[in-house]
């Protein structure tokens, strides 16, 4: 997959928009669109980062003592940024060329973002395309997902097939409204949970839900495929397949696994969720839901009282990293870890590496943290990200459970599972992206992410970006960091730590850069909704429509990235793409299709 194929050193400047995107689209706990968690998580990152240098052993105390740290430190960097960055790049170039002849050099300004953005756009294109392909292929080959059915989500109470258009319309809107309400409710629940730190609960649900999803979805899907191709499979083999698939997923997503496999799993999962949406949402509702999502995305992200912002503010008012409380943000723990590692001797790390893996579940108490801080980095990021992911999923699951427990009749139950599993998946994705990256990346991301989190307050974001940039440049010079920039503190230590690592010496930096390259995040929510749109478009059997939607969505994605590159302001990723997609879907099927059909049948070319 393209993901790790491209090996260019990356500058935070480019990373930034994507991060914003991801942050804007990887948090929403319910509507299968984790638009909510990550940004806040990253805010957490930021503050965690800023505060980390002051106090190693406990992030909380550290958080508490320097509320004004960010501004000061950032400004400090700001001045230093420009000249520094250039020189720094020069110093780095030779190495880059050695390792990668075709590697790009960097330069300042928007253009640079455009250029490097290109690579990242492609790196998003590929998985999105694959996800869409999976969905469309399934839609066109397995009738189960296209045929009329009468079982739907409990969210969509209105669904009589042969109602007059008017009725259908308001009903679909009602359904969409309900779903939206559910989304909002979840958001609030998320806030509540965050306020009263019930991490244990979260964790528990987490694992359960993700397990359920990995196994149940694959089971259902396998059954559909087998039925579609009318091939007799025996239970033994089937269960073996499902069991292996599920466990593989757990290992890769929640623990450690080959990047490629992780990505494959995430894509498959999001495709399955998308398919579930298509299958179990009434025809019209799908479209309205997509429309509503666009609006919601805009509101949640841009409106000054949008939930994201509220979360951020509460966190800041509480003057602590926002997400550690709520989600076990892998990134957050990293900060601590990094800071910590920066301070500690490698030996210490070595000792504790052994037990890194088993304290994945005890992050909720600060004790757990201390241990982690002491631990080896790479291991940590992962397991914490496990925790984090878990936290998210649990969240989705739990609240879902509360919501639905009363509602389901036994027959509907599986569906309720579906619902539950959506938020989890998405979250899983966003998190696991965290997982995909390794610590320096995260470290570096931390700041812009923070920016993202705070992006609602525009100026701050820009500032912190610069600081981030600076940090990255500084990697070459391990010393004296602590004094100069609080934000920068964790970073060089990360750098050192890499260099000190006994891994192949040459590789370490490339590696770190590769990691950066992978640092791009796109919420599973986007994958899902894009795929839903395309899949739905393909369900009427017209490939032109499908194609049009596909192109439109990708272009929309490009535009979003472009905009992000231009004004460094948090932007939602769904609106443009989905609007394009919807417009082109209806326009094509209504206007273009008759025209094209006539042309095709007459073999007239234009």
């Amino acid at each position: 997959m393209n993901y790790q194929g491209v090996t260019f050193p990356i500058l935070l400047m480019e990373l930034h928009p994507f991060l914003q995107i991801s942050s804007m689209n990887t948090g929403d706990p319910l509507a299968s669109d984790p638009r909510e968690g990550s940004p806040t998580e990253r805010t957490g990152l930021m503050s965690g980062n800023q505060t980390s240098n002051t106090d190693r052993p406990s992030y909380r105390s550290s958080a508490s003592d320097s509320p004004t740290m960010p501004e000061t430190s950032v400004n400090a960097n700001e001045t230093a940024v420009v000249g520094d960055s250039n020189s720094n790049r020069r110093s780095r170039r030779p190495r880059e060329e050695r390792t990668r002849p075709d590697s790009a050099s960097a330069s300042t300004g928007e253009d640079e973002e455009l250029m490097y953005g290109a690579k990242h756009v492609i790196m998003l294109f590929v998985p999105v395309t694959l996800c869409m392909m999976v969905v469309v292929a399934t839609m066109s080959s397995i009738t189960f997902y296209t045929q009329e059915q009468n079982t739907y989500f409990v969210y969509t109470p209105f669904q009589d097939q042969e109602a007059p258009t008017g009725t259908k319309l308001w009903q679909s809107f009602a359904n969409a409204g309900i779903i939206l309400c559910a989304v909002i409710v979840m958001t609030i629940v998320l806030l509540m949970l965050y306020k009263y730190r019930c991490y244990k609960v979260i964790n528990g649900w987490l694992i359960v839900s993700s397990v359920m999803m990995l196994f149940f979805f694959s089971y259902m899907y396998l059954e559909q495929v087998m039925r579609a191709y009318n091939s007799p499979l025996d239970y033994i083999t089937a269960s073996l397949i499902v069991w292996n698939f599920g466990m593989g997923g757990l290992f890769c997503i929640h623990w450690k696994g080959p990047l490629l496999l992780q990505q494959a799993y995430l894509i498959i999962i999001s495709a399955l969720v998308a398919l579930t949406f298509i299958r179990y949402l009434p025809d019209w509702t799908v479209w309205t839901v997509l429309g509503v999502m666009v609006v919601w995305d805009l509101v949640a992200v841009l409106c000054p009282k949008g939930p994201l912002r509220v979360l951020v503010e509460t966190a800041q008012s509480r003057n602590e990293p926002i997400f550690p409380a709520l989600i076990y943000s892998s990134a957050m723990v990293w900060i601590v870890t990094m800071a910590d590692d920066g301070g500690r001797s490698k030996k210490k790390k070595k000792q504790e590496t052994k037990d890194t893996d088993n304290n994945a579940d005890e992050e909720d108490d600060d004790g757990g943290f201390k241990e982690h801080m002491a631990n080896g980095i790479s291991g940590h990021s992962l397991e914490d990200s496990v925790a984090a992911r878990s936290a998210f999923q649990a969240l989705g699951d739990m609240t879902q459970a509360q919501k639905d427990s009363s509602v389901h009749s036994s027959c509907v139950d599986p569906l309720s599972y579906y619902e539950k599993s959506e938020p989890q998946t998405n979250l899983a994705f966003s998190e696991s992206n965290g997982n995909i990256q390794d610590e320096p990346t995260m470290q570096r991301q931390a700041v812009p992410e923070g920016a993202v989190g705070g992006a609602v307050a525009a100026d701050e974001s820009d500032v912190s970006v610069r600081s981030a940039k600076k940090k990255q440049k500084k990697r070459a010079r391990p010393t004296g960091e602590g004094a100069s920039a609080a934000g920068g503190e964790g970073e060089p230590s990360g750098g050192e730590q890499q260099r000190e690592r006994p891994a192949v010496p040459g590789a370490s930096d490339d590696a770190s850069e590769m990691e950066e390259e992978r640092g791009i995040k796109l919420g599973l929510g986007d994958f899902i909704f894009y795929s839903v749109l395309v899949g739905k478009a393909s369900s009427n059997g017209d490939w032109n429509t499908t194609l049009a939607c596909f192109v439109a969505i990708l272009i929309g994605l490009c535009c979003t990235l472009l905009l992000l590159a231009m004004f460094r302001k948090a932007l939602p990723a769904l609106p443009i793409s989905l609007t394009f997609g919807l417009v082109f879907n209806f326009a094509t099927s209504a206007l273009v299709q008759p025209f094209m059909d006539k042309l095709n049948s007459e073999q007239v070319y234009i």
Partner: protein
Amino acid sequence: MTVMEFFGCTFITFGPPFALFLFTIARDPMRVIVLMASGFFWLCALLMSSIVWFAMVPLRDHLAFGVVCSVLLQEIFRFLFYKILRKANDGLLAVSQQTTEQHVTPKDFSNRHIMAYVSGLGFGVIAGTFSIVNVLADMSGPGTIGIEGDSKYFFLTSACLSLCIILLHMCWGVIFFSALDKKQWIRVGMVVTAHMLFACLSLVNQASSSDNSEVYLGSLIPSYLLLFGSGVAAFLTAGGSLVNLKAALICRRGRYEIE
């Protein structure tokens, strides 16, 4: 149509573009994006033209009208795309000057032909796909077309013409853009005329039936002649020449390679 026919036609239509994509575009993200974007512009053009066609209720059955409209619209959008591309281009040219080292992205922007070619191909691919994909999809099954009196060469011609238009768009892209760069309005006109010519030629196909498949030759041969012409023109525009070609042919492979 039968499986063999299906794959045959698919290869015919998408073989060359695939090769082009594989060797000249896939490796550079910027080109891929430009390809996408140009495809998007073509879609917009198509949307416009079909709106026009739809609005003109009395003329709906006379395809000629719709065809002419859409050809013009396509060229207009090609022009718009050119404008936009150049805007981005100038911005990026500045960047690429700074960089002394070997790098793909700025290079692309410095060389207008590449983007011209890519966007042309983008137009072509999407146009070709739109014109063939449903034909391929609808006719899946054990049989072939013709029971309603259509020619048995329907698919073959469809595939060939789709390929033709893909390549034509590619050439036109190159010619068109460079013509605009150099403000050679005649060549711009030529492109438009060529496009119009091709479209009108394909109108001939309507007369085809099982009895007279020869009609197809009436549109195929000229179309490919046109393609040849445009190809040569584009080749020369892009700075190719017979001499170079010879040189390339005789030179031992790999001798001149930069990378």
